[in-house]
């Protein structure tokens, strides 16, 4: 019984080695280009949401107060938001804006739209050093 198992294990391992799978540490510019393209697609979707009059319910868009996502300070989160009374990540502040100036509905933390909005906001702040907690 044990013998059979061992044999099939060997066969399995040999079989795996013969399949031309790449190694964990091997990636090429084709890969990095694709990953960058995936990220930029999310940034693009975020920009569209940022300027959309239909993200909320009253026609107000994020970009109306935050052109180029300026004054959103993604590099300072998580931080203590005195008006909420605790340390929060950026997405909670985005939801505050969705509910209040946009008179809309909050998004789930892992909603692809929320990911896209954060991708866009952070992309517009690229190159700025991280300063979590800063006011």
């Amino acid at each position, binding site marked *: 019984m044990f013998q059979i198992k061992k044999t099939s294990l060997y066969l399995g391992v040999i079989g795996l080695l013969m399949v031309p799978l790449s190694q964990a540490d091997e990636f090429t510019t084709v890969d990095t280009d694709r990953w960058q393209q995936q990220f930029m697609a999310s940034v693009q979707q975020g920009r569209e949401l940022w*300027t959309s009059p239909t993200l909320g319910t*009253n*026609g*107000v868009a994020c970009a*109306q*107060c935050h*052109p*180029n996502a300026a004054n959103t300070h993604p590099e300072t989160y998580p931080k203590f938001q005195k008006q909420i009374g605790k340390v929060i990540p950026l997405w909670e502040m985005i939801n505050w804006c969705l509910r209040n100036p946009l008179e809309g509905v909050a998004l789930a933390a892992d909603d692809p739209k929320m990911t896209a909005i954060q991708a866009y906001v952070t992309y517009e702040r690229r*190159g*700025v050093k991280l300063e979590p907690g800063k006011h």
Partner: protein
Amino acid sequence: MSTLNRSRRNFIKNSSALALGCALPISLVELAFADSEQNFSFAYISDAHIQHIKGTRFVRNWDKGLIRAVAETNLLAPKPDFVMFGGDLAQLGSKPELDHGAEIMSALNQDVRYVMGEHDYYLDLGAYWEKLFGPQYYSFDHKGVHFIVLNSIRTYDEWTHRWPSNEQRMLEMAGLDNPNGSPFMVGEEQRKWLQSDLAKVAKSIPVVVFSHSPLQKIYKGWNFWTEDAEQIQALLQPFDKVNVIYGHVHQIQYNQIGNISFHSVMATAWPWPYPSSYAQAEQYLPKLTVPMNRADPFFERDATGWQLINMANGNVDMNFTLYNNSERSVRFNKTNKQPEDSRYQEESARIPGQQHY
């Protein structure tokens, strides 16, 4: 007509409520007519961005900012000589927005003169606005001061006429950071008019120019910019005292270029970040400017407001009435020959809220 009368009565009611709830800063009252008989004051309201949702619904937040400015202006004593509106009464230039804005403004006790903003203009190139408020550029004289109103938010003809619909043109220009936008300009027609208008004015007469966009170059990406700013400045430089007052930027800015003092005004709708807080672009905010406080979004009216302007012997003294913040005064310093904040101009007097990033 009866609707208008009813709403006027509501305003009067609101004004009395405000009179009880919020006392106007006394210093504003003292400033007016404090110095000499030549002094006078006028109020300046700008950038209301009245935004139509649907039917009879408008964005409540922006409505409130303008309603409050109108109510507070009516409480001023002594009364300002007149009221200016600095442009962007509407958000997308539509009839409902301009009508709704005009109705709110109709509660003012003083005569109001209007400046054209891009949000008023790019739907029908100002046609309906002209019906309500008159010509797009003009001049007038008041107590020895020559006032000029320019439409500074025009742009290249190719851009104006490249769009498949007027609605799309309006939307493209309404996005402040839209890369499909186009730089503002006064244009040749108005520059010629300005030249001939100024030719009739003695160089010693104080001149005040009202425009929507800054007649100086700060940041092109958000149209904190007028393409032919230098040409306008050249026409104004020969005068002894020139003041330019502009809206559009939704923040405190001031500057001095030669004989010309520049002042921006606040919006009643919402504040904008200083261009320096956009990490991907270079900008030229005048070093003289002590920024407004960073806005607290949890106070809906923070970093918005309106202005009482005192004409002190031909120079503009700007008093910012800020709804959720300490008031600010930027006055002409005769020794340094430039506008300076009455409290925060010294580096050591700045407060953390004025640091933008």
